[in-house]
């Protein structure tokens, strides 16, 4: 139904990818998380008219996806699916910033079009990096990394519980909607009205609470005391440190040097 199928498809596809084996998967989760954050900060710190200087940053997501075996098509599809908000806000730039900034031959391009292009490129870079992070690290890996980096343990545990019950409750709400449709003879289809929906949500809440009670009883019976313990030992190996050093220094170089402009001027000079 509507969004429900979409939800399960999205998560299971990424979840399956995160179970694979590759050099990108083997990297320590903390290192990958911090590298991704450094990457995003570098990308969004460019001035708003930057276009060509952002191109070289595609190196990181493309390489991570290639090494990690993440299909480019899947990443591209995710980027397109979530683009409407940035597209909508960015699309106003050409209307408000009409001063010509660049000319190609006799055609002048306004600053607004440049900054619009810049927003969409930033968008593609940041979204694809987040998608690739989760599909090479897994949600459990990211949660553990968050906890090791100092997030409250209760918050990390809560994220894990949320993730585990997402599918269970997603199915529950899908069953309720199917039952509603079966009883409503097309009335109010495809979606229920406000009164019905408040009852549906109320019923879903009550079922959730009683399920949570049973879950808690089962967890306490198995010795849960508010802390998640794992056998896994996470160590930052030499390869992790090398990767972080290499990636972050590459970001700094790319942030200060516009390779596209240099390559472009070499080519256009050479052509003349």
């Amino acid at each position, binding site marked *: 139904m509507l969004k429900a199928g979409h*939800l399960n498809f999205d998560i299971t596809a990424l979840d399956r990818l995160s179970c694979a084996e590759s050099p990108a998967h083997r990297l320590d989760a903390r290192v990958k998380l911090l590298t991704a954050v450094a990457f995003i900060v570098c*990308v*969004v*710190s460019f*001035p*708003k008219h930057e*276009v060509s200087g952002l191109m070289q940053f595609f*190196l990181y997501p*493309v*390489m991570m996806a*290639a090494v990690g075996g993440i299909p480019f098509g899947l990443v591209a599809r*995710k980027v397109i699916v979530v683009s409407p*908000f*940035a597209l909508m*806000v960015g699309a106003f730039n050409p209307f408000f910033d009409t001063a010509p*900034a*660049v*000319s*190609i*031959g006799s055609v*002048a391009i306004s600053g607004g079009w*440049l*900054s619009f292009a810049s927003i969409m490129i*930033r*968008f593609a870079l*940041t979204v694809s*990096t987040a*998608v690739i992070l989760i599909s090479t690290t897994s*949600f459990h890996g*990211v949660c553990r990394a968050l906890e090791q980096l100092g*997030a409250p343990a*209760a*918050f990390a*545990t809560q994220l894990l519980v*949320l*993730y585990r*019950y997402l599918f*269970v409750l997603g199915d529950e*709400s899908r069953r309720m909607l199917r039952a509603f449709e079966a009883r409503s003879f097309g009335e109010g289809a495809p979606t*229920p*009205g406000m*009164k019905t929906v*408040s*009852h549906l*949500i109320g019923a879903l*809440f*009550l079922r*959730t609470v009683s399920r*949570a009670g049973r879950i808690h009883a089962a967890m306490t019976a198995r010795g849960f005391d*508010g802390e998640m313990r794992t056998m896994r030992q996470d160590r930052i190996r030499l390869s992790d440190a090398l990767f972080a050093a290499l990636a972050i220094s590459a970001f700094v170089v790319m*942030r200060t040097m*516009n390779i*596209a*402009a*240099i*390559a*472009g*001027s070499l*080519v*256009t000079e050479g052509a003349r």
Partner: protein
Amino acid sequence: MHMADALISPAVGGAFWAASLSAIAYSSRKLKRETDEKLVPLTGVLAAFVFAAQMINFTIPGTGSSGHIGGGLLLAILLGPHAAFIAMASVLVVQALFFADGGLLALGCNIWNLGFYSCFVAYPLIYRPITGNAAGNGRKHVFAAVVSAIAALQLGAFSVVLQTMFSGVSELPFKVFFSFMQPVHLAIGIVEGAVTAGAVAYIRKAGWHENSLPAGLAYKRLAWGIIAVALFTGGALSWFASTLPDGLEWSIERTTGGSGPAASGAGELAASTAPIVGGAIVLGAILAAGFLVSMLMKKNA
């Protein structure tokens, strides 16, 4: 109305990260101190409930469109603000990672816009004072829920506008963006409030009683703490950004072929086509390399 990484600056992103993290830390500590560990699985499962509830789309009367509830206010009413805030924050973490709704840097902004106002402003400052301690089902409760939802969504929408303005990536004038966002979210707020009130009434009729708000909340201290941390981070980051303009200005000059209106002529032409040609070369090279590496990885596997 998820904020996107592409629209914010590092200073804005960092400041709201700091603010949201301190609110999360505060709520976690509060939960740990005042309840047993029982609430950890409970809030986790209830965060999953928020997801499931957001999947239920309904028809919005008079518009023909459909929408879903946010759920922050509902949880705050039923579980108290701390558990609700933690649940909303974790929902947004999952949305940022799996659905790329927003992004990693904008996550702080999103937790703030969609979680903080409903749990720590609308609920304690509007809903509780109107309804008092009575757990009734009357008109007062519907009114309180609608007003609180409107307030939370207005504040959230206003935050989106402010964050966009301070980041300066978008060219949208403040007035235009403001006069678009606020009325839209007024309508959404009325619907959210009505559905929330209906759901709360239904849940209470079935005999559920909420945990009452723990006495003596240190709201004032929380507020000052958050403001201090956010200002410090934002200030530090923008100072850092302003001391680094050299490479940046150089690259602007390179891209735009000098600032201001460009004159035509052979020299100008070369300056402006170069970045485009170069950009295409760089992108092509990266994609080709990526393709090669992925073929190699497949062969080895």
